[in-house]
């Protein structure tokens, strides 16, 4: 959720770069309703994939080892400092072993670049994505 908030805060820059963020979660649609309206609403699509069909199609696999990486817990601590507390009921419901991933998809529907996270917080952050877009234009190095 921390990453979603960060993307929402930088949305104008993504619009300027001509890139539309789309975010997918393990959670059921009912758990995502706060992203659609109210103070936590975000200006891009947030999708529910509790069956993990899109995760499988994109090769985004779960891993217990991803829970063991110290970098993941550093990010989790930062989220806690920013007021985001884990909801253990949702954690159990949606699973703990999922890993994140990010894909830039071009106008023709092909992968421009792919990032597969190595731990549960290893998502590309807006700064990194915008820097990549600024430096490389349409192509990742």
């Amino acid at each position, binding site marked *: 959720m921390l990453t979603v908030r960060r993307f929402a805060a930088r949305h104008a820059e993504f619009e300027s770069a001509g890139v539309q963020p789309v975010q997918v979660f393990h959670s059921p649609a009912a758990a995502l309703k706060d992203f659609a309206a109210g103070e936590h609403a975000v200006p891009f*699509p947030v999708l529910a994939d509790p069956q993990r069909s899109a995760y499988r199609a994109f090769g985004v696999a779960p891993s217990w080892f991803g829970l063991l990486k110290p970098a993941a817990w550093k990010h989790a601590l930062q989220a806690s400092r920013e007021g985001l507390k884990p909801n253990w009921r949702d954690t159990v419901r949606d699973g703990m072993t999922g890993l994140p991933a990010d*894909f830039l998809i071009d106008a023709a529907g092909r992968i421009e670049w792919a990032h597969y996270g190595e731990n549960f917080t290893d998502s*590309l952050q807006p700064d990194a994505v915008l820097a990549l877009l600024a430096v490389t234009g349409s192509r990742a190095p």
Partner: protein
Amino acid sequence: MANRLQRGDPAPQVFLPRAGQGDFDSAEMKGRRWLLSFHRYAT
């Protein structure tokens, strides 16, 4: 390990419920660049 996608691969179709209402179909992104991010859970 699952088959990982690489640059140049066609992106699989995405058809999923959208937060709020309705469904998202990746076909609606044709002609646009987009960043698809996968997370675990939303809380």
